């Protein structure tokens, strides 16, 4: 059973400026993990999958519409493979969110390859966030190509 988050299917064209080609097939779902939260991420490009991970994270951290002064963070990461890149990406956003009391909501990818991502991430700084996400884990981690599209699964410790 997979639970699709109601109202959570999002299209990058309506969420932030994309410098890469738009991916209308991009969306995320919550998987059926008992103890934690499993994200299932779909996109035509690596950037689209990373963006969906960021949007899902923002939704988890602050489910209600978040309002506060905007802050932009520059994120540049390298990793041995694209699944490792996904974990590093989420954990970098979590670190920045914790440090600056900030919610990532809008993503502008300058570059995203199998081993590298370079992006500007924008979002509000909040006085408080209702929910905490501890980390992206390596358990059950997948970032595959299926029917010409990227599909990733990652378990978050919440």
């Amino acid at each position, binding site marked *: 059973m997979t639970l699709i988050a109601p109202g959570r299917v999002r299209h990058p064209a309506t969420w932030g400026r994309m410098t890469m080609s738009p991916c209308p097939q991009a969306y995320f779902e919550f998987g059926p993990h008992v103890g934690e939260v499993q994200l299932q991420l779909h996109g035509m490009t690596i950037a689209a999958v990373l963006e969906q991970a960021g949007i899902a994270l923002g939704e988890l951290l602050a489910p209600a519409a978040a309002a506060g002064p905007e802050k932009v963070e520059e994120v540049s990461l390298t990793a041995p493979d694209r699944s490792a890149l996904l974990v590093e990406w989420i954990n970098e956003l979590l670190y920045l969110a914790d440090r600056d009391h900030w919610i990532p909501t809008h993503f502008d990818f300058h570059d995203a390859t199998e081993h590298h991502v370079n992006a500007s991430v924008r979002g509000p700084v909040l006085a408080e966030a209702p929910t*905490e996400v501890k980390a992206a884990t390596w358990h*059950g981690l997948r970032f595959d190509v299926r029917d010409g599209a990227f599909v990733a699964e990652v378990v978050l410790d919440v």
Partner: protein
Amino acid sequence: MSEATVATATLERLIHDLPDTTRAGMRVPARVFADDVLWEDVRQEHALEQLCNVATLPGVVSRVCGMPDIHEGYGFPVGGVAATRVGDGVISPGGVGYDINCGVRLLTTGLTIDAISGKVPELVHALSRSIPTGGYGNTQLRLERRAMEQVLKEGSRSLVAMGLATPEDLAHTESGGALPGADPAAVSERAQERGRDQLGTMGSGNHFVEIERVEAVTDPAAARAFGLVVGGVAVLIHTGSRGLGHQVCTDYVHLMLGRLESWGIELPDRQLACAPLSKPEARRYLAAMNAAANFAFANRQAITAAVRDVFRTVLGPAVSIQVCYDVAHNMAKLERHGGQELCVHRKGATRAFGPSHPETPAAYRDVGQPVFIPGSMGTASWVLAGTDAALDLSFGTACHGAGRARSRGAARAAHTGRDVREALVRQGISVAGASARGLAEEAPDAYKDVERVVEVVHQAGLARKVARLRPIGVVKG
């Protein structure tokens, strides 16, 4: 029930063994403590596969254990216990988890339920205002560099000079609230940044501060030693090392993943990333993990200080709140078992030492250390006492909670936060602090039946039932 009366037949009924041939690469067998109903549940999900994966770790000894609340985690299952030889074994940050030294502390108040009649909503409201919940920090208690280093080195002890802890509190905290060998230099700048304003904060998820009524006592002698009487009021605190601990785990899993090949270690799950205990990387992780654990002890101690302030403000300055005990349930500790020095990983599992163990606090040498098994928001929690028999059964370990039975998504599909809040209010439980989503995800039926879980712990001799607590006020993270 005395330890001697744990009948072999009973024990056999509650033990489910998986031989070391269950999957390729297992070095030891696996054992789960469960009755038939819990066993059927656990067989439906991935926890057993995860437990068998843990049994492949280099240097693992005897058997890996699943507690009665075992459920799917990441790498290790939640409710998983594994011990590795210090000589040729490994330490796995994934076997501790991201919330290093997540744990539970019980406070006794000396108050009766009648004395706080009509005051519970006010207490809950005041607690929710005094103890930050959710994802961020505590602007009232920001740790600059030197103060942070002191907390990392000395844990709860560092709060004595600030008036936030007493020597009696330390005596009633696992390891005195300060693990030796903690080294702030092993904790990254990032981790320290994340923790800088998080002392005295609860976090979210299943973390809470609850006001409890002691509903029943099943072991009067132990209850007396723990300061629990029927009709008494207690406070249960559940939280951990917050963003600081999360970053320590993130940092060291990353580090160890990059070295596995050079150490010749192959793993069935990358989250089991580990380092040979003989390597500097392992020693550095232990130093960082102990520092994060000290931060967690100090965190629960700072929350204790906030609880004291709130109770005295609402009920008067004569209120005297004592720490019954504080136990970790996400830790790796170097301990001696059967004449060997072992690194015992407890992931979502609580140390449960008996009367004769030297680390049992002096006040509890006649009965065993207190063990806490919280239920969910609307159900009972239990206080138990550790047994000497548990050393042989489970490396001196019992379970840490009821254990999740359904995913957060399934819980949200079954309930709204409003439904859950109204149901709790109908039970006479005041609730504050949680988001609607958080309440729905933590709905009581998202968890296993705590009575069943506790009964298995008791019958198997992992720990002995002492008292049942019933929540009357909940501040949810």
